[in-house]
């Protein structure tokens, strides 16, 4: 019998998905299939399934191509204007995939569902930190809860099982995803420099001092594969972060140094509002530095930036559980951030 495993990476174009696809493509015991509505441009040749998961007939038409799938890595996300509105489409995507996939893929072994620290209410305001996997839920709605409940219900009596991962602020080398913090920082910094202003932390004053955490996308990819093949991860939930905490006031001067910019005290602005008119400035930067021709809105999801920089309370997950189950990789977050910014610079995505 072959030990070959086949991964289906759902949401393959996002920061989590792309890094996972790239990581799996380098693993000899894995076949990988990416899945998203639109096929992203990738450096290497990867099998891709272009499916709109909100369209049941589209799924039905293409599910036959997914018969070898043994592991599903679910990292798709449909944003909506309100938290209540997010529930339906995000639950439907999972349901629309799982219902036809189970009969179509008889070797299905494990489903890795990605959640995040919103499971603990990070988006609502100060919450109990460090957050543990056993902490009680906040008052719904929360689409993670809907997905999680559906997955648990669906799993009963089946040959497959699941693992739930809760990363926070996944940072990776990826263009075109709305929630990639290094590109938000880099474009904001480049625009500040172009306009002759110092690098100011754009978030709330309290967020400059509060504790923060991030998850390196390659660490997350490794954790995902670990979760897929580790017996004790069966039907368990794990927080997964770099394993350290930092304060923006500690990291900000290092970012300023990398971009060779003076630093100034924080000035709270809404990035969504203040960056809305900066498209032409970015286009000028692209021309001046001969960068890859990306539009500003392709690179930076300002809403996500406002959320992260607006958290003027400690944001912390306890990662003891995943360590005790045997996943040991840790990353120094400041070194990770500077490394990613340099990678984007070398790839001529940012100046």
């Amino acid at each position: 019998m072959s030990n070959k495993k086949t991964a289906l990476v759902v949401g393959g174009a996002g920061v989590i998905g792309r890094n996972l696809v790239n990581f799996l493509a380098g693993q000899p015991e894995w076949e990988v299939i990416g899945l998203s509505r639109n096929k992203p441009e990738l450096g290497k040749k990867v099998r891709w399934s272009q499916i709109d998961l909100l369209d049941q007939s589209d799924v039905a038409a293409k599910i036959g191509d997914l018969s070898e799938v043994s592991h599903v890595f679910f990292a798709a996300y449909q944003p909506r204007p309100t938290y209540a509105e997010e529930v339906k489409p995000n639950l439907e995507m999972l349901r629309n995939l799982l219902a036809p996939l189970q009969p179509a893929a008889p070797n299905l072994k494990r489903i890795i569902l990605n959640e995040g620290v919103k499971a603990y209410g990070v988006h609502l305001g100060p919450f109990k930190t460090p957050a543990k996997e056993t902490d009680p839920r906040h008052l719904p709605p929360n689409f993670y809860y809907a997905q999680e409940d559906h997955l648990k219900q669906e799993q009963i009596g089946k040959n497959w099982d699941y693992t739930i991962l809760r990363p926070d602020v996944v940072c990776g080398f990826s263009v075109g995803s709305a929630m990639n913090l290094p590109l938000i920082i880099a474009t904001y910094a480049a625009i500040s420099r172009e306009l002759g202003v110092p690098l100011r932390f754009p978030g709330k004053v309290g967020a400059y001092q509060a504790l923060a955490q991030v998850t390196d996308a390659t660490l997350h990819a490794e954790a995902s594969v670990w979760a897929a093949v580790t017996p004790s991860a069966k039907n368990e939930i794990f927080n997964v972060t770099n394993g350290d905490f930092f304060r923006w006031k500690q990291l900000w001067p290092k970012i300023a140094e990398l971009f060779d910019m003076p630093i100034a005290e924080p000035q709270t602005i809404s990035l969504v509002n203040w960056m809305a008119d900066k498209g032409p400035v970015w286009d000028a930067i692209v021309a001046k530095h001969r960068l890859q021709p990306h539009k500003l809105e392709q690179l930076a999801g300002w809403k996500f930036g406002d959320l992260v920089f607006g958290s003027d309370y400690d944001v912390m997950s306890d990662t003891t559980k995943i360590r005790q189950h045997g996943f040991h990789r840790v990353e120094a977050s400041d070194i990770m951030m500077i490394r990613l910014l340099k990678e984007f610079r070398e790839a001529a995505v940012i100046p």
Partner: protein
Amino acid sequence: MSTPNKVALVVGAQGVIGRNLLDHLATLGDWNIVGLSRRGGKPANRIRHIAVDLLDQDDCREKLNHLADVTHIFYAAYQDRPTWAELVAPNLAMLTNVVEAIEAVAHRLQHISLMQGYKVYGAHLGPFKTPARETDAYHMPPEFNVDQQVFLECRQPGKTWTWSAIRPSVVCGFALGNPMNLAMVIAVYAAVSKQLGLPLRFPGKPGAYDKLLEMTDAGLLARATVWAATEQRCANQAFNINNGDLFRWSEMWPKIARFFELEVAPPLPMSLAAVMADKEPLWTAMIAKYGLEPNPYRDVSSWRFGDFVFSWDYDMFADGSKARRFGFHDHVETEAMFSNIFSDFRRRRIIP
């Protein structure tokens, strides 16, 4: 079982750190162990004790001159003094005396492990940069932990041995008569509260109740210390060593109360050194009533240390990721650690 080929000299063998280090080394199979302390101790499998006054250079030379086979020094001794400045001279002298005495006779000496703590980062002075990293700049002296490290750094070039510096948070484990034993502080305080029909009140500063802190399990610390002393990559480096999780008393206190089957009441600031000073007769009565081991009250009292820990009304933690990056992968859940230690105290008939 492999033949012992390493000889550990554990300096400060009766403290909470030293005791747990002895126990851990004894389980490894390839170590013979010599424990140094003022009190000495009973020999056990692969462990022998020497009673020595480390402040007395001549006593050191005389008692240690036969230890030619020592390969590793694990230094975890501590002399308390009333002020930070007064700590320097005796603590530096003890280390110097041991190193000089052993170096002179032990030609196979490979490593000197130095036990430090977050005082290196100024954690005892007030709010400091957190998470603290091994690369952070020192604070304004006096700081004996730094002087000790500098002593090793200056002495090491050209020697057969390397050093490592281990920086734990508050160390929790079993020991008696230890001036820095937080688990014992909590256990005895809780037992006395219960005996008096009181709820369990957090006795520290109001601001200390919701700040972040962390602990270091003595067993985890022992494993980390031996790991750093025997791992080539760790030579001449410092490592923060902690459980790997952070907590706030506001979350932990109700869990501790549940362990002792006590109600929780809101925090009430009080000096344990003051309010526990007159509890010796009560403790003696409790020993009789519950059939406890007859440990003198002073051996289960570290009230000054309790007051110190409970006064930290600022985040008190260090970044433990360097050791994890270098390959030390142990994690201890602090809540489980407290519960295990309290259960151990009960098994040993130290608390009811």
